[in-house]
């Protein structure tokens, strides 16, 4: 890389830090339990907005995996999300009514929290509808994974977004609080993903799955990105630059092997397509707070009107991580 290139990337990273520094004023602490964070604790960060019904299962899932402390940014919820989270003993929560879009879809707020609280911690940045699955996750806690990554001198762990959907119209089976969303959204696309490699940023750009298949069949270029690097041994000099799709310094994006081998990776099961989705999509149309003028949501809104079935006869029913490994969606790498 040329020196100019290096300087440009560095400037971009510093800009992200600067934005986070400016936007920190938008955050008001509701409950700050961050002094309870012990050294080497595993942290989880997330931005939420009106996700009350999803939270109980979400918290339970990640507590079971071994997340020690949760850091939430509440973006002006009106359904009791804030109050519910404030009661949890292992949660710190900040609130803001500022624009989600202007804060780069919540990333500026999270970058601030990361720089402030996550230095030296393994930290998992996910949305409330994303559930991390990694090799051996049913027998080994997250700590086993991070210890192993530490021992292997690996700083970041890739987990591709895997869209899960129900059989039949999305609205057909309502989701109840505390329920495992994958009892409803059991299905996924196993082998229709396309990968582009960005040599400049060292990252992959993965698209495909049911969203590309159903909502973007004629404009695949606009289909949402599925590559994510949610688990990072954080250093305050790091920054996410495009949601959790891409990190800087760019060496963190090298989560794949270029010489034919497989590195260890996981999946983020994406419980987006529940009955709550239609409501979200409708609300988003009026708010216009999502990526690229919410064109993704425009497409959903159009398609949802006809009550589509994302399911097709080649959909796979989710069983466990080993299934995803065999299908080639994730890999154990050399972790055995």
């Amino acid at each position: 890389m040329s020196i100019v290139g290096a300087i440009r990337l560095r400037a971009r990273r510093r800009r992200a830090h600067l934005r986070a520094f400016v936007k920190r004023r938008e955050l008001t602490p509701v409950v700050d339990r961050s002094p309870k964070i012990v050294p080497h604790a595993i942290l989880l960060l997330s931005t939420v907005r009106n996700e009350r019904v999803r939270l109980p299962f979400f918290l339970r899932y990640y507590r079971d995996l071994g997340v020690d402390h949760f850091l939430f940014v509440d973006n002006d919820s009106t359904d009791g999300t804030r109050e519910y989270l404030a009661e949890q003993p292992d949660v710190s929560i900040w609130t803001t009514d500022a624009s989600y879009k202007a804060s780069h879809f919540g990333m500026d707020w999270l970058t601030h929290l990361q720089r402030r609280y996550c230095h030296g911690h393994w930290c998992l940045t996910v949305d409330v509808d994303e559930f991390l699955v990694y090799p051996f996750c049913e027998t080994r806690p997250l700590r086993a994974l991070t210890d192993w990554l530490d021992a292997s001198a690996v700083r970041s762990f890739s987990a591709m977004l895997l869209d899960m959907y129900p059989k039949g119209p999305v609205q057909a089976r309502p989701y109840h609080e505390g329920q495992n969303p994958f009892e409803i959204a059991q299905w996924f696309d196993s082998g229709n993903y396309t990968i582009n490699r960005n040599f400049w940023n060292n990252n992959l750009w993965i698209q495909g799955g049911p969203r590309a298949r159903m909502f973007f069949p004629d404009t695949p270029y606009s289909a949402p990105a599925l590559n994510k690097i949610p688990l990072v041994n954080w250093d305050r000099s790091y920054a996410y630059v495009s949601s959790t799709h891409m990190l800087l310094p760019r060496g963190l994006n090298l989560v794949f092997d270029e010489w034919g081998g497989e590195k260890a990776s996981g999946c983020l099961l994406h419980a987006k397509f529940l009955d709550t989705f239609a409501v979200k999509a409708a609300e988003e149309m009026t708010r216009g707070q999502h990526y690229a003028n919410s064109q993704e949501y425009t497409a959903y809104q159009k398609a949802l009107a006809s009550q589509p079935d994302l399911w097709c006869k080649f959909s796979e029913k989710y069983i466990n991580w080993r299934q995803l490994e065999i299908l080639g969606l994730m890999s154990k790498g050399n972790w055995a």
Partner: protein
Amino acid sequence: MSVGFVMLCHTALERAAEVARHWVERDCPVVIHVDKRVAKPVYDTLVTSLSDLGNVRFSGRYACEWGTWGIVAATQAASTILLREFPEVRHVFLASGSCLPLRPVEDLKAYLQSRPRVDFIESVTTEDVGWTVGGLNLERFTLRFPFSWRRQRRLFDSYVRVQRRLGIRRRVPAGLVPHLGSQWWCLTRQTLSAILESPDREAVDRYFRRVWIPDESYFQTMVRQFSANVESRSLTLSKFDFQGKPHIFYDDHLQLLRRSDCFVARKIWPQADKLYQNFLLGDPSGQASAEPNPGKIDRLFAKAVERRVKGRPGLYMQSRMPNENWENGRTAAPYSVFEGFSELFGNFEVWLGKIAGTRAHGHLYAPNRVEFAGGETVFNGALSDSAAMRDYAPKSFLTNLIWNTRGERQCFQFGPGDKQDISWFMAGDPNAQISVISGAWIIPLFQSNQNFSDIRRDAARLQKIEADHLSVLRSPWTKARVRIWPLAEFVENPMEPLQSIIDEISPRSLRRLTEAPQLADLKGFGQFLQNLRNQGMQPTLMGDFPAGEDPTPTASRRGRPYLVK
């Protein structure tokens, strides 16, 4: 009290304490060395937690940075104490703080009792070592390594380079033959004391102080000087991955470890509660004197390393994105591409599916939609038939299709009317079997009801595309199995080439083709070509069709053509 343990600890001291207690309570003395870099209070906690036990000693502390002399110094110091304080110990077992005994101590005692003079230490000459990481074998002994590999990598590497270039070499002390091997050993008092009390130990130590990773070579080399009975293997089950770091055992390895019959395993994840519980507190009724048998574990870890280094052929995913030509197989399985066949034969796809028992698709790269077999709109892996999605990533489309249908051979049609982006990729793929009837694309034009000027224009365009495609297939970079017949040649005797293609697709059903696909009616075809020529377009790819004469297949020969009767 026939065996004593030396434990080298640096993390998870509470686990080390548990293991030490386990051994001491079973009448085996333990000497513990704790890395100097461990904080004092942590060390003190360990000492107090074991203060109720009689047969525990703590040795003087050295800083044990990986690859440096400190580890050997620590081992020497602790072994000296063990030999001095516990005169009845016959075998000294070197273990680490993350080791876990898998079999009852009684088993180990009995095992060693029946081999009283044997030194268990992996000790291999440098020429025979295949496992060192980083390419340093003999050079470990002949270069100097004053810099830390972990913290001063650049200095380390450049100093190695400088020494190589200048040809600076250290002399190995006379009489020493460098040997390498696992750090974890079990030596007899006789051998170990001979090493520690050797008259030239000072000189030898001075030499090894600058050897790279002396913990894998000091005792391994010295033991050859003093032992009469070296059994070159370690009693500690310890596996290394391709980066040279040890594999770690977790709770889910319980059964595997049980069945391995090894005495001690390393390294155990400190929070593997189930392992510690089972092996430290489990019932002592061990198996009979079975020999250690780590075969299963070996295979598991060998597979893991292979997956990390070579990966699964034909798979492209978030953590495997090989550079071109590093794919270790561009696609996952063999597949067949047919060019011109469905134009020449009316029912070719149906016939092919039936005869070869494979999935026969139409033109997968057709401009309007993907023609999956049976007119499906989605296919295995939920591949869409949208042409836009396919053209967005034509390579991914093919590799996905082949990956998704592993175990079932895919056949598809291809031609100059299709999107050509995939040509080079297929040509370079050894899994591709490409059969071309060149010029057959003109048959649909011949049969069509278009104006002749349109036909002429289309023919010129398609001929250009196919000529380019054929030059790709004939390029020196082509790795696919390519067969090309001009249309004229193929029509004369279609069964022979078909037979050889089918034999290759399903080699087990070596039967003669009984049913031929239906050949298109080519009445007047020669004249049609002549008309094109007369209009100024030269059809070249079809071979020679005489103007007045219509091509007819000669009666196919009986039997397989290559069988000698």
